[in-house]
């Protein structure tokens, strides 16, 4: 299963959510890999705390591979190479957790040629055979990278794929997330141009809300009653707006609550963070766990 992670704007928490999902999926006993296609700023290494590739790799990055500069992109086994104590050893029962870093200072793809698409198809096909789940971080907004994977998936009809669109729970993000999917040059538009069936493609797209402040969240305890009344009115307004823009609950796969750890340092939330040091909220870990299950659960994608 291929999962493409995209966001309407930068700073939505796409990378940190995507990496946490693969981490949880690995803990659930599956072999997973994470491809950092965010060529502008490949920082997935930092989130996995692999200092050697914190800002991408100098050699054999994904960028180099797609340009045909190396036969195989570099693979990083997170269980072995992470600097974080809690990630150093593979927990019993967990699957493989592999990162394919981007190239340091690689820059955006300049053009979409047939060779590039071909290499992408080869890579994804091979990885899909090897791993249960491949999450591809496709950067923010409309990009050549998004077009690249849309073009590549048309050529691999046998390989199941899904899209996750990350957005924050605000007015502008809701509208932007809808635009990214249904607007001009959006995913559906471009996908159809490359030969995808728009209805079918639409069924493969789900939204994930990040940094959501629930009206009953613990963070709101300190707020005044007036602020809470206002927040709850805003929330229902957003809900109505989201429904109108097709970003409502039916099109949503999950939501990640606002968490101080994610806010101040993008990192994986391990069970130690929740249970031992208690720096992260249990709800956040539960939300990642839930998403990691739903991402491969067909009934969660059935929809209406």
């Amino acid at each position, binding site marked *: 299963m291929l999962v493409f992670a995209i966001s309407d704007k930068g700073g939505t928490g796409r990378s940190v959510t995507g990496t946490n999902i693969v981490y949880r999926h690995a803990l659930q006993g599956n072999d997973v890999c994470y491809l950092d296609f965010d060529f502008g700023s490949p920082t997935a290494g930092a989130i996995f705390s692999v200092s050697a590739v914190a800002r991408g790799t100098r050699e054999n990055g994904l960028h180099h591979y797609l340009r045909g500069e190396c036969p195989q992109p570099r693979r990083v086994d997170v269980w072995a190479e992470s600097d974080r104590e809690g990630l150093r050893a593979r927990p019993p029962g967990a699957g493989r957790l592999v990162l394919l870093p981007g190239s340091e200072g690689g820059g955006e793809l300049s053009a979409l040629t047939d060779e590039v698409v071909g290499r992408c198809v080869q890579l994804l096909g091979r990885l899909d055979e090897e791993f249960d789940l491949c999450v591809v971080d496709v950067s923010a907004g409309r990009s050549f990278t998004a077009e690249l994977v849309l073009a590549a998936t048309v050529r691999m009809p046998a390989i199941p794929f899904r899209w996750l669109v990350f957005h924050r729970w605000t007015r502008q993000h809701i509208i932007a997330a809808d635009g990214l999917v249904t607007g001009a040059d959006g995913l559906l538009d471009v996908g159809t141009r490359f030969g995808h069936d728009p209805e079918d493609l*639409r069924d493969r797209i789900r939204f994930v809300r990040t940094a959501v402040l629930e009206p009953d969240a613990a963070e709101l305890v300190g707020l005044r009653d007036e602020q809470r009344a206002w927040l709850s009115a805003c929330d229902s307004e957003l*809900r109505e707006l989201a429904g109108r823009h097709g970003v409502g*609950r*039916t099109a949503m796969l999950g939501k990640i609550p606002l968490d101080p750890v994610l806010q101040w340092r993008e990192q994986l939330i391990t069970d130690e963070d929740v249970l031992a040091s208690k720096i992260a909220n249990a709800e956040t870990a539960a939300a990642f766990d839930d998403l990691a299950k739903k991402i491969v659960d067909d009934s969660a994608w059935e*929809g*209406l």
Partner: protein
Amino acid sequence: MKLQPRQQLLELWEAAARASYRDRVWTWGGRDGSNSISDAEQLLCFMYPASELPGFRLDTPDETADDVLAALAVLGDSVEIPKLLLRVMGQYLRTYTADDGRPLFSGGSYFRPLDDEAKVTPEQLQLDVVDSFSMSVTLALGTLGFLKVFRQSVRRESIRREIRELEDLASKRLSAAMAGLLRSFTVNAFDPGSTAGRALLRTVNQTGAPTRRVLDDLRRELRPVRAGLRDLTIGSGSQVDLDNENLLFECGWTWGIVKDAPDIVTPLDIGPQPKGVAADTPFLYFTVNALVGIADLFSARTRVLSLLNDDQITLAQAIQRRWDLTQSYWRTIATYGRGTWPLEDIPWRTVDEKESDYYSLGVTAMVVQSLVNNRAADVDLGRVAAVLEELAVRARIIRRAVPGDPPVLMHSPGVPINLNGSDALGPHLLWVVSDFAITLLKRTIWAASIAQNTRMRERLVALADQIWRHIMLRRHTDGSAAGLWDQPGNVFTDIEVRDEEPSWYFSERVVEFLVSAATSSGEPPLRSPQLVELALQMLGEAEHLLDQELVTRPLIGGQTIQPKLRSIQASLQRARAIVSDRPATAQALINDALLGLERLSAARDSASEAI
């Protein structure tokens, strides 16, 4: 116990979901088994709030409220719930359709034989009942409305197809229910000298006036109703000879399709129309029941969503005329004369000389309904309120029962109604009604919602709170039916029967009540013109003082006095904006502002005291 409709409804939903969806399988039927009425009642426990109250909508998964989802968590998430409802509605509509395509409205397990030994025959179990017509009208309209909105969120073709099929089935059921209502309406004419005639005259004549005069006067009062009934064309009740002015009459619904009722001629597909056996005389209970269901046919929601097609509107209009005439007939009888109303002479006596508090309650329903339509004065409402209070006392709802108290029988097992004519197909049948308490509560809250002055409203709301406390005690406290109704043994020590299963009959009526309570608490509060006037005068003074303050004070930068005045200004602006809707709240704001202004002025006065 203070009534909190939203919380109570959510609790009820949680309980109903738990009782209906056991081990992820939908279970039909409660203590009285599964039949076309009980199943409709069970479904309406969910569908009625969902279609009547915006905060309880289930048809737009994107907007379902979180507390609603939490309450219905047993049924699934926001997407699974409407899908489940779709499946269950399909089950209901298909189960109660005969092989020849005719929708079934059978009373089934609700029928009881008069003689305990006798066995109800299969033909009798299949008999259509007015209760089912009435319940089906409400359910079909709720279903159609639900589907109409839900369809907009659905893209999957298989679900869309199912929605279309259900729309056809529900629409057909609605048409058939309307035809059934038209074929069970009846007019009963009788001679003033007959037993029935004498009974009616005794009921209306509360002042001991000469019978001759009462008769003439009653004829005159009923002339418009008589003329209207004479003009009825389709359906039953149109063959009676009303031209003979000497005869008295009564009109309303019998318990099922009238014996030898003519078929309804309509282009609508409703399948073959069954033969009836019901006696050709109105029953008070079924008349009230029919009136309640029919009201949904011309509700604002039905019109706004245009749930009826043209042919159905024709039928609905024919029903509406009967509704109006029946309403007007019973109001005339119940409030006849200048002295005591016949309604106030509790218990009500029917023309077949049966007496029960239950009948008084039924007549009250029609009087309250007509007060709603006529925007009646609170004087009339006061008399109805007194009747409601007395009924609550007499039925031992707001008074304790002593051992062997006869009114307790009205709650359990209930008031038996003889289904005259049912013996054509087997033993004589009974219909047992035990919804006295909740129906009384419904009437009370309904009357409260039309009260024009605060004191009358307070009086009725206080009564409603008392009855509600009684009803809450009658909830099941344990077992699979916990949180649902009805366990009268909790309140009445005489009643030893304990049921494990819920009564959907009673629970659905509680839902109806809670919905109307929630609707009326959503309306703006009652306000008196005097209060608005007073608030406006206070506002005038406050604004004047504020103006003075702004004129006299020199503007000096850095002083904290300006924000103070600004906040006073803002509260006064807010007060002016809400003064006509919420005069008391406006006054509170004004008081606060006046106090602030007064402190400033007092401080200045003390400064000028220096010698």
